[in-house]
């Protein structure tokens, strides 16, 4: 049995092929992984982990709900309370298109609280809350005014999800009575009440949380670390956007069939707003009028501004200019549906990798339309790298970077290939029901991912608030953050309405007065 050369070739011919492929695969994988770890080591980015919060012990916290509309219902679900109607609807959606919201709701950890009362001036909504959340040993009580609820001694904390012009009066009333507050954004409706609310919060034993739930999103916390580690270098421009193109996104919400003067306490809705006759359109779609809402600047810009303030901590802009108009929904509204905002922060810097003094200052732009749904990502543009920021996060090195010049030259980095990508969701398909929810989801405003599991960020935000109420500690969106957000929104509203540059005086902590103009009056007027 002597093997010839021919035998060896025919029998063992596959061996060199096998060896070569193995070598090539191993070498390629190892080189890539070596380059990658060299880059990662250089960047030193630490993906953020969720905060460990102390347990919310003791007796259940007694919560009062003020405003049980669309947002009020969402907040209650984040607290663990869904209406029968919603549960039915989600069951159907789960069956039809695999929507996972019901499953996530049911898996959400229970918080130590009970819904003690509800205050909604539309009977149908108040009754819905009572019917859905009352149990044999906890009857949800209806209060006809917020003062009555706050002073009843029967609630420890209130959640305010009302039109904007009610945010501050209700928050102040609660804080003065040492009742904790979770208030939706924008925190206030006028400049004057922003200061009054700040004083009330500073003087109260109770805690105030502003409802910017994205502060719980892990990608933003990671982004914050990236800025601290100076991965992007000096960021000179930040671009943010809103694109929506559906009724819901344009605030044309459904008008309830049972809405009438008997079922709605119209006077209480109006409050300090101009006294006009009963108007269902104004009641359900209040976001479209300056008298009750604040349009793109208060409603949606605040999300983008606070998302970035949470990452960069840049504070109130020195200058704001804005333009826009009612270009897509000429339906009687008086807030703009297209808006372009430029905010300048001439003294702000995220750090420089070039000669001292060369780089300083940043422009933040916000561009919004309610007539187009094309998704434009938030981008932070630095001298050394650019970062795209949403629920995911991606960083590209810049061709002209000083910091990465050598790595770019060696071909270990190239401007077309991201050097860092953070995707805590790892491609989990999201069954999002509407275009507007997709808008919020893409921006990281609806949920975050913890160990690959989707978690409602509003739930995390509320949980943090409840934990601080019980155990003390710092809130991630308290009065300081709320003050920055509210003032910035008001400066934008003024810039748009007056068509001039609005300036902030950081030392005097006030918007630089304009002769013969009452700024708050401008904010509230219809044009």
């Amino acid at each position, binding site marked *: 049995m002597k093997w010839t050369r021919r035998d060896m070739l025919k029998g063992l011919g596959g061996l060199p092929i*096998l060896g070569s492929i193995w070598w090539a695969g*191993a070498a390629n994988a190892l080189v890539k992984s070596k380059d990658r770890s060299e880059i990662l080591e250089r960047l030193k980015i630490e993906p953020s982990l969720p905060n460990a919060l102390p347990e919310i012990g003791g007796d259940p916290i007694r919560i009062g709900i003020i405003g049980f509309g669309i947002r009020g219902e969402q907040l209650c679900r984040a607290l663990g309370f869904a209406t029968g109607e919603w549960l039915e609807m989600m069951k159907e959606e789960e069956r039809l298109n695999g929507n996972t919201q019901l499953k996530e709701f049911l898996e959400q950890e229970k918080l130590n609280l009970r819904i003690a009362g509800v205050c909604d001036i539309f009977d149908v909504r108040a009754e819905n809350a009572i019917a859905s959340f009352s149990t044999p040993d906890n009857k949800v009580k209806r209060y006809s005014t917020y003062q009555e609820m706050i002073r009843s001694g029967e609630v420890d904390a209130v959640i305010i999800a009302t039109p904007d012009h009610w945010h501050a009066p209700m928050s102040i009333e609660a804080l003065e009575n040492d009742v904790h507050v979770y208030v939706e954004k924008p925190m206030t409706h006028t400049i004057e009440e922003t200061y009054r609310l700040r004083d009330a919060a500073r003087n109260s034993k109770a805690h105030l949380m502003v409802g910017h739930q994205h502060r719980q999103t892990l990608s933003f916390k990671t982004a914050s670390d990236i800025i601290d580690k100076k991965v992007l270098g000096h960021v000179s421009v930040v671009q943010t956007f809103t694109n929506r193109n559906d009724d819901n996104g344009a605030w044309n919400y459904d008008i309830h069939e049972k809405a009438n003067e008997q079922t709605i306490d119209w006077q209480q809705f109006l409050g300090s707003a101009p006294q006009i006759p009963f108007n269902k359109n104004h009641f359900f779609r209040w976001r479209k009028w300056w008298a009750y809402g604040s349009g793109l600047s208060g409603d949606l810009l605040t999300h983008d501004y606070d998302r970035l303030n949470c990452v960069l901590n840049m504070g109130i802009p020195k200058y704001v200019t804005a333009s826009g108009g009612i270009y897509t929904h000429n339906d009687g509204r008086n807030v703009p549906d297209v808006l372009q905002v430029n905010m300048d922060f001439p003294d702000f810097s995220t750090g420089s990798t070039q000669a001292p003094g060369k780089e300083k200052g940043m422009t933040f732009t916000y561009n919004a339309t309610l007539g187009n749904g094309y998704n434009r990502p938030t981008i932070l543009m630095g001298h050394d790298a650019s970062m795209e920021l949403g629920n995911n996060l991606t960083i590209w090195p810049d061709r002209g970077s000083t910091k990465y010049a050598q790595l770019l030259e060696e071909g270990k980095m190239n401007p077309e290939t991201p050097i860092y990508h953070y995707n805590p969701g790892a491609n989990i398909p999201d069954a999002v029901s509407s275009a507007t929810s997709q808008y919020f989801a893409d921006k990281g405003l609806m949920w975050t991912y913890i160990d690959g599991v989707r978690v409602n960020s509003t739930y995390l935000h509320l949980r943090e608030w409840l934990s601080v109420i019980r155990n003390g500690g710092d809130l991630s969106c308290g009065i300081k953050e709320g003050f920055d957000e509210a003032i910035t929104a008001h400066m934008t509203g003024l810039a748009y309405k007056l068509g001039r540059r609005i300036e902030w005086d950081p030392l005097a902590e006030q918007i630089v007065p304009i002769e013969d103009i009452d700024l708050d009056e401008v904010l509230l007027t219809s044009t």
Partner: protein
Amino acid sequence: MTELLQREPLLKSVVFLRILIGWHFLYEGVIKLFNPDWTAFGYLATAQGPFRSLFIALTGEGTIGWVDTLNTITLIFIGITLILGIFEKWGAIAGMVLLLMYYFAHPPFPWLEQRNVEGSYWFVNKNLIELAALWVLYQIPTSSYFGLNYLLKREHKTIKTPQS
């Protein structure tokens, strides 16, 4: 048919096909073996089609690790058997099973949205074609023509010779 199978050009072309498929599988396996971060999670989690829930079930915390390891080992096993020419029928069967799973995880059905695909497909895609090619390899074994089996068979023959 037997005569056909003994035609040199046919055997050579099937061997060539066998090496190419083996090459493809082996390289995929080795790349995964040496990349500790690789996982099938995203691929499975975005599965579509009639077996969607089955694939998503594989992404569970307790199972995904096993799925990843088993996939890498199987890819390498198929690559080795086809390139070296030993247990090639087992390699072909394992390959068909894997490809069938890949095919159904993201089936090119016109009513499903095609994600991350580089071509245009209508029911038939490259996974299905490679699967059919493996079927051919299963039907036309060539390892005793080119491969370790050639040596084993020859050894077998030489033992037999004195007896005859």
